[in-house]
């Protein structure tokens, strides 16, 4: 490792400090992230590959996987649509209540997911007026799939918007104005200029939103009712397996979620490097203009 250099620049810390800091960081990463991730996979495979595949192809496991994928497939597009609309409105226009929207967007982050779940039960459960009306019309939301989707949307609500707002603001509206002056219509401007300028941020927001949607436990747990094969998402199913002392099966399903998380992180890593918008430098002396 090239930690020590013979001449240390004035702002660098002494080698001992640097080695200590790096060691602490590495030990923490190993202890709290690397070893548990390895443990998930070793536990999952402790009864052999046969048991592993049996666990993840079990009908109940498949139902949980299906429900998780479906929930994400609904929550992510909706939140991305909302994120684009909100960030565009906030970055481009001044309107009364703008600051309030910015604050409200963050509520799902600041509220505990369990409370978020409770909120939906209180609002739509059979004992609430609205829930009673829904029950009378045979529309099931709480303890059913729609409740899970709603809770997931609530919890992942800020992710896309929060990612897009600063990027939209940094990009500014000049290019959009240029597109309009050049004869583009509103949708042409949107798809040819606005979206391409924020596309990496948008993808990043989608990746984060997807990861959270698939992994959400608290809010979903409250509204789901844990009906096996029906309202169990992957995280809920894992808990049930674990409580049933089916450790290998629990870890097998966990390993799927972990793989998903790793894939998300890899995607995030590549996207993050492209999110920073390319600035147009005011001038570049390297290339001189020919008269």
């Amino acid at each position, binding site marked *: 490792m090239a930690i020590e250099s013979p001449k240390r620049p004035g702002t660098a810390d002494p080698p001992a400090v640097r080695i200590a800091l790096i060691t602490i960081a590495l030990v923490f990463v190993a202890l709290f992230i690397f070893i548990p991730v390895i443990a998930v996979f070793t536990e999952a495979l402790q009864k052999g590959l046969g048991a592993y595949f049996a666990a993840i192809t079990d009908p109940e496991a498949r139902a949980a996987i299906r429900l998780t994928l479906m929930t994400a497939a609904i929550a992510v597009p909706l939140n991305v649509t909302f994120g684009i609309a909100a960030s565009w409105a906030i970055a481009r226009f001044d309107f009364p209540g703008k600051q309030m929207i910015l604050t409200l967007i963050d509520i799902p982050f600041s509220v505990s997911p369990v409370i978020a779940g409770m909120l939906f039960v209180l609002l739509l459960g059979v004992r609430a007026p609205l829930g009673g009306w829904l029950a009378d019309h045979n529309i099931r939301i709480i303890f059913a799939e729609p409740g899970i989707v709603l809770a997931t949307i609530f919890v992942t609500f800020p992710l896309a918007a929060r990612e897009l707002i600063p990027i939209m603001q940094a990009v500014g509206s000049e*290019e959009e*104005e240029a597109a*309009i002056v*050049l*004869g583009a219509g509103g949708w042409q401007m949107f798809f*040819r200029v606005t979206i391409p300028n924020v596309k990496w941020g948008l993808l990043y927001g989608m990746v984060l939103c997807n990861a959270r949607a698939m992994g959400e436990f608290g809010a979903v747990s409250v509204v789901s009712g844990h009906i096996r094969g029906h309202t169990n998402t992957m995280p809920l199913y894992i808990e049930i397996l674990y409580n049933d002392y089916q450790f290998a099966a629990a870890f097998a399903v966990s390993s799927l979620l972990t793989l998903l998380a790793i894939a998300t992180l890899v995607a995030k890593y590549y996207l993050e490097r492209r999110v920073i918008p390319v600035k147009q430098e005011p*001038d570049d*002396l390297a290339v001189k*203009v020919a008269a």
Partner: protein
Amino acid sequence: MSIELRNISKKFGDFVAVDNINLHIETGELVALLGLSGSGKTTLLRIIAGLETPDTGEVLFHGEDASAVSVRKRKVGFVFQHYALFRHMTVFENVAFGMRVLPRRERPNEAEVQRRVHDLLKLVQLDFLADRYPSQLSGGQRQRVALARTLAVEPKVLLLDEPFGALDAKVRQELRRWLRRLHDEIKITSVFVTHDQEEALELANRIVVMNQGHIEQIGTAEEVYHHPSNAFVYNFLGNVNLFHGRIENGRVFIGDTAVELENTHAHAHPETGKAVLYVRPHLLEIVLRPNGKQTFPATVKSINPAGPQVKVELVAEWGDMVQVEISHERYETLHLQTGANVFLKPKEQKLFVYQI
């Protein structure tokens, strides 16, 4: 296409950006809107383009009210101060954009797009950069791509917001000459905004001097420079020395120095006779000996011989700083040195006097 502005006003909150402006621009003219930042010149340009809606008044293109015409249908070309090139598109695609967003039946086919884009890139001498992205270009190159992109939609009016503002002095000079030639070639009605009086004087057929949302003077470079209609214009269009004096019997007194006036703009306060004199640095002469009441004493503070003229800074007898520009020949014969006591003599005819 001619442009007519009638009683245009625009407020942002309590700030009056444009205050009841009337202006007529002839077909094929190249007009400069000249003013400091905050004078309303950019707002006025954006109103012409349709990017801002005026609170009152109307914009007429070719005699017809354009207020109801949307920006995309106005057939104006707008070059933004920071170019606003589409950063995710190549130079070629930037220039082709205006053609690609046309309604299907008006859209030229791919071969036609190719031909026109390359023609335009040749016009701005950047054909070899067609595949580059804006971030790979220099400021001057971006400016010319922005211009080519604007010309691609065959606008009837060309509007440029501080077209050379972000460029260094040398590139700015070259682009200025190039734009002048281009305008002579294609004769498109053009309006550009600038805060650089030199740029306006060199480039424009007519100059509109703006201040705090209204027009101070409209005229050719010759008119606004040599016959400014008021002190603001005189002050804005070049370096100037200010002297407080008074007018008596057609003569201006600065301290004890009297200057004969041939200037029709000489107005003093009717009761006190007080006036402010504006004198450009090159309209003062340095002499070594006093000459009665035509000269006043001053001490040389600093000398800057770099440039076509020697810039001398002096302190007048009564404490005011005075800037004088003299030729290098004159500088040699005077043997000026810092600290020398000399005399200043205004070259009378072109003084500007304004009442206070």
